[in-house]
């Protein structure tokens, strides 16, 4: 219908994309840091090692954020992921003493179980997801503390070492590879499968979804189970990396996860969002905190600058939409 050239079209498409405002802010930030940082700390920001390092640091947040994206798109929330991660790392460390398989399958299974509980409460009993996952989070966190009495558990396994420190093709660390797989698979599920499409429908209008014959309750329960699964996977990569589990490891991480998802343009009200946006979201957080180190910002400065950048990123998102009208 319109006769614009292909380039402006692509640019338009990019602007319409979820989270592109945040991406613009992120890229500007990266460019800025790589110009300034040599003068301040002498650090070279834009090196392959550093970039890969940011990816690796964000591995576990990233994996959980993928699961959370499903939960949020379906119009719900999972505030228990921090505690789930904590409990699962602790369990994984315990299991690791019985061998690799026990550790990996045990953790994944229990992740599914934790997710199942959340799903049961939210979609089976129809309880308010905000409060219920706060409640289950409280329980999971307590279990982790009880299991460890607050102390760090050491894991014991050689496979873990490989997952934690091995790399593929010599330059992609295993945890990053795992994260990329999760990203690709989840993006595929979300965009290309009946399940994914229906998750959107449920989040966009639960009533209309029901009237279209979608078994919303089952689907919502599945998103929570996926979220639990992602926490388990994240727990494994985390244990593999630090070979120990600390019961305070993930307190408050749910906010990082939710921030990643929402920054990526996923609507907290459901029905809108994408895995790609989420990727931008968690990379944004990762590159920020990494960049601040290169600028030798103190913590206060970091907080202030982070706050300002968040506001700017959002403003870009809004402005770019206005620009289109």
């Amino acid at each position, binding site marked *: 219908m319109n006769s614009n050239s292909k380039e402006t079209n692509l640019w338009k498409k990019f602007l319409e994309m979820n989270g592109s405002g945040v991406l613009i802010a992120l890229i500007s930030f990266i460019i800025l840091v790589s110009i300034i940082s040599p003068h301040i*700390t002498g650090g070279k920001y834009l090196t392959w090692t550093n970039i890969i390092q940011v990816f690796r640091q964000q591995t576990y947040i990233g994996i959980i954020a993928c699961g959370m994206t499903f939960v949020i798109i379906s119009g719900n929330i999972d505030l228990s992921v921090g505690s789930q991660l904590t409990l699962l790392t602790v369990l994984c460390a315990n299991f690791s003493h019985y061998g690799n398989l026990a550790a990996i399958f045990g953790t994944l299974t229990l992740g599914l179980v934790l997710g199942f509980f959340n799903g049961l409460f939210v979609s089976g009993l129809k309880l308010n997801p905000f409060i219920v996952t706060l409640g289950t989070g409280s329980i999971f966190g307590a279990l982790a*503390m009880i299991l460890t009495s607050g*102390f760090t*558990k050491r894991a014991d396994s050689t496979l873990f070492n490989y997952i934690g420190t091995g790399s593929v093709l010599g330059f992609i660390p295993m945890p990053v590879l795992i994260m990329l797989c999760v990203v690709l698979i989840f993006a595929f599920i979300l965009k290309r499968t009946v399940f994914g499409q229906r998750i959107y429908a449920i989040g966009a209008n639960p009533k209309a979804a029901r009237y279209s014959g979608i078994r919303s309750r089952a689907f919502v329960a599945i998103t929570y189970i996926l979220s639990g699964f992602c926490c388990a996977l994240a727990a494994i990569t985390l244990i593999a990396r*630090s070979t120990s589990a*600390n019961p305070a490891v993930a307190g408050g991480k749910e906010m990082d996860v939710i921030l990643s998802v929402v920054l990526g343009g996923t609507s907290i009200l459901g029905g809108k969002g994408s895995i790609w946006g989420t990727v931008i979201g968690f990379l944004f957080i990762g590159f920020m905190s990494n960049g601040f180190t290169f600028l030798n910002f103190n*913590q206060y400065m970091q907080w202030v600058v982070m706050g300002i950048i968040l506001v700017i990123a959002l403003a870009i998102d809004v402005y770019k939409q206005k620009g289109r009208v």
Partner: protein
Amino acid sequence: DSSKKNTAADSGPEKEKAYTIGYCTMGYSIAPWVLFLGDNLKAECEKRGWKFNMLSAEGDSELQAEQIQTMISKKPDLILIFAGDASLCVDWVKDIDAAGIHSVLVGMDVKEEGRKYATAFVGPDQEQMTYNVASEIIKEYGPDAGLTIAQIGGVPQQYDYIVRVKGFNEACKNTNYTLIEPEWAHSNRADAQGKMENLLATYGDKIDILMGYDDDLTLGAVAAIEEAGLTGKIKVYSITGMVEALHAIEEGRMVMTVQNSTAEIARVCGNVMDKILSGESVEYNNPSELFYITKENVADYKGEF
């Protein structure tokens, strides 16, 4: 074993080399004590003309693990660690060792198995500190006094609080004291006051001793005790050594606080670093002095904050 690391000895003729010291702390702005520790360490370094690079994990040990890696990649001459977790720290000192860098633990020792990778430890251990306070109490009243002890801490998941509680309880093991479950006030003095109120409502004057795991919070509890008219009846012990706490001791509202002076730690740490960087060998354990402040000696001390 410290000879393999790049110290001044390898760097040749430059005598007045500006060393770069990396400092990885579990927190800087989250509490005054860690802040002072950071500032005093910085002052020690800058006094010597060294560069001081700090990374603070603000209470997040996973982040601290990442920051250790970041710090290693910047290749400082020496890395100071105030660890958020003694167990996780094993891996960190291992990695630092593998990178050929010295590591010095400050204020929190690494777990047994990590000590062979670290160069030195400076300061009293958090666990030791409260163990000592409990020992003072036992010395004062005897192990058969049948005391009822209430406890107030900060953040229940935070490692330093956990070990403080552990140290105290450990020391009370062989007594007939009743330890009430600790209450947690999350850095909020008003909340600490509330928690103490709850304890008083529950146990009334059955409580003989209050053990506070941070002066800031202890003072909130002291306010509640005052309001209940139980000042002096409930003996208050605490750690940190805040100025306000010293006043409270003077006025008889508290019995004792333990000052774990950051200036003292930094001073000892400075000496240790001097030795390491000039290639001398050092002891692994470098204790810094703890000050037990009571009404008798309170005039001799000044709080840091």
